[in-house]
């Protein structure tokens, strides 16, 4: 199949899938649920500010926006994990491949479909956070735009990861289970890492009125050491870690690191998509 035909095939397939996604209610329900969840965090931040009267925080919109992007990426990764194995499981894939469709055009079309849905979800989230900032004056800073751009590439990583798993599995349930296991590992590792590194080293001692060193129990230290070492491995396979690194670069205002992170996300997605095509060819289109 030449590339002109392939492009046409990608266009037709992705258009069909996008229509089906945006006319169904799934993404809107999930997005609303995620945004409501993050609204609690925003309310918590507002409550903390009103209690303290004067407080110092990083932009209180950034963290909820970050969590929204992570949860949406996980959801669309899950959808991607189901996409190919579902069609294979139902037998529609075999029928589809009698037409002008090959593994490359099929995998790319699936990827583009999920990516477009993700971009729509991001735009709706941005509108939500913009309106929330107007309502509360928590501030809609340019960092949110930069985070949005970063999210697109990191979402791409998660979607590619889902497509890879889907291309390797013939049964939809297995795809879903494997994806959820990985997603849970990624999320648990990410949360644990944030939690353990955020533990304060110094604490205020009211008796001496000085900041004193806080001693942690030995098992905390071992958990921290293990997580730190695991991070060497996880930072390359977990899309959330790519997002976290980009977010850190954003906070540090390190433009080079920010763009390098986007570049590494692109490479990550490309590698996974190539692996998906290879895996898809090996598994074939039959049930």
């Amino acid at each position, binding site marked *: 199949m030449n590339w002109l035909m392939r492009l046409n095939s990608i266009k037709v397939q992705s258009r069909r899938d996008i229509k089906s996604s945006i006319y169904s209610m799934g993404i809107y*329900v999930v997005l609303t649920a995620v945004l409501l969840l993050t609204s609690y965090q925003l309310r918590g931040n507002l409550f903390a500010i009103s209690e*303290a009267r004067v*407080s110092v925080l990083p932009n*209180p919109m950034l963290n909820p926006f970050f969590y929204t992007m992570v949860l949406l990426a996980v959801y669309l990764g899950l959808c991607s994990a189901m996409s190919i194995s579902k069609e294979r499981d139902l037998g529609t894939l075999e029928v589809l491949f009698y037409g002008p469709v090959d593994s490359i055009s099929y995998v790319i079309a699936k990827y583009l479909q999920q990516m477009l849905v993700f971009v729509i979800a991001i735009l709706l989230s941005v509108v939500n956070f913009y*309106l929330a900032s107007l309502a509360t004056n928590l501030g809609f*800073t340019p960092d949110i735009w930069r985070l949005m751009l970063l999210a697109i590439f990191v979402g791409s990583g998660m979607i590619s990861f889902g497509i890879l798993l889907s291309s390797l599995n013939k049964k939809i349930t297995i795809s879903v289970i494997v994806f959820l296991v990985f997603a849970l*590992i990624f999320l648990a590792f990410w949360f644990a890492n944030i939690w353990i590194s955020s533990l304060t080293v110094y604490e205020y001692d009211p008796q001496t009125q000085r900041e004193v*060193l806080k001693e942690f129990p030995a098992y905390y*230290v071992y958990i921290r050491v293990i997580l*730190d070492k695991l991070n060497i491995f996880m930072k390359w396979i977990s899309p959330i870690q790519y997002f976290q690194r980009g977010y850190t670069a954003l906070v540090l205002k390190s433009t080079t690191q920010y763009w390098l992170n986007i570049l590494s996300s692109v490479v990550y997605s490309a590698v996974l998509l190539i692996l998906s095509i290879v895996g898809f060819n090996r598994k074939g289109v039959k049930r």
Partner: protein
Amino acid sequence: MRTVIKTALLILLNLILISALTEAQSYVDPITDEDYKQWQDTNEEVKSGQPKKERQLVYAINPYVGMEYADTFAPQQAQTLYLIENIDHVIRLKYTDVYYWPITGEYMADWSSYSQDIQGKLEIIKDGKVIDTLELDDYTVFFIGGLGGTQVLAVGEKAVEAYDLWEELFTQYQEEVVYYNQVLLPQYNADVNRITAEYNKTGLPVPEDEVPTEPRIPQIPDYFALPTNKGFAVNLPAGRYQIRLVDEEGQVIPDSQKNLVVFAQRREGVGYLMRPGDKWTMDFNSTDSSQAVYLNGHQVFYVEAYNAAEYNRYYYLRMTFPQRPLFAQGSEGAWFWVSLGTYYTDPYRLQILLDGKVVQEVSYKPYYVRQTGGGSLGYTIIDYDPTNPDLVYRDPSFYGYKINLQSDKGSYSMRLVDADGNVIPGSERVIRLVRNDRVWLLFVIPFLPLICGNGLFIYRRRLKLKAKPTV
């Protein structure tokens, strides 16, 4: 397929397990009979409260930790030392008795029972080559502004001069105290007694110009220096090195070789100590310029500004506490801000900007907290004026820049400028006055995507209905 998935999961779990075990193994060496005996001995020692001491070559270190010179030591067990780049730190090598104190989880040096300085030259090695050889030299730490003031390290002749200056000032102070106690105060007391006696005798008030002035108590010098000592002043750019002590013949002193990691800061900026007007004792810090100041409505607050740097948490804490083996382990990926101790006072000014334009310029001033009368709690913060009769013999409660925003509308920010109006990098902070009266909107706005989805759903249904052939 299931086999493939199982294998993949198994590989992942194994990788996690191997990583954990490898790490754990670096802490847990194979236990030998000797280790077991030592453990039994230690257990007995701990039970008896008398840990076993071991004579060791240790590094006594005075690292510069940002705002002061710390005093710490690295026992044999600490194989790597950490220091901040491009600033003088002092290292001395000593023999002393070292023991492990399990209650605080650290090695302790018993300097009082045995402490012997080791003579020699300190070699600094990079990539296997000796790049520098340091000689022992005099050093001292002197304090500008008294004991709590800024610490400066002086090396060589400057150290001797710095300590001589302290001795000279202190001798002068002692002489002034003697003169005050032996001459000025008795003379004043005698004058007061004479005038009182005259008044008691005549009943006439004493002319004001004859009332004696109380002599001023001599002020202790606002300068202090520690006695000079011998040490190696180490000042290196960031990188990984080895250090060791060699004797006059160039022979390496046993147990003196250590790894040295010299590290740089990641960022430097301005930290603010924020003091809300209505909770002036409950201050807190803002070190990162990505942080914004959030106010619940109209608030008055005071800030003090200081320079701060962000360091790797692991490196910094290992530099400060090399004698604590578990301390900061696993925090290689974490960063934190450290105050560098210099406060931005006069002539620096704090500018308040409204929508990008400077609307206020605030000077650094002293303030006094006046408690309200009666039994109830309460206070007011007033400008400290030493000529105010109410404030005679009273010191300011705190110093700072007072921020009092004039309007609730617009976008505020603040920044620090020097005498020439140059903005201090990293001093910018956004100030936001948040609104709490429309929180309910936070739980309405998220339904927007659902409304959009419903709209599209209905639109699609209508299209389908239209597309159906009419009978």
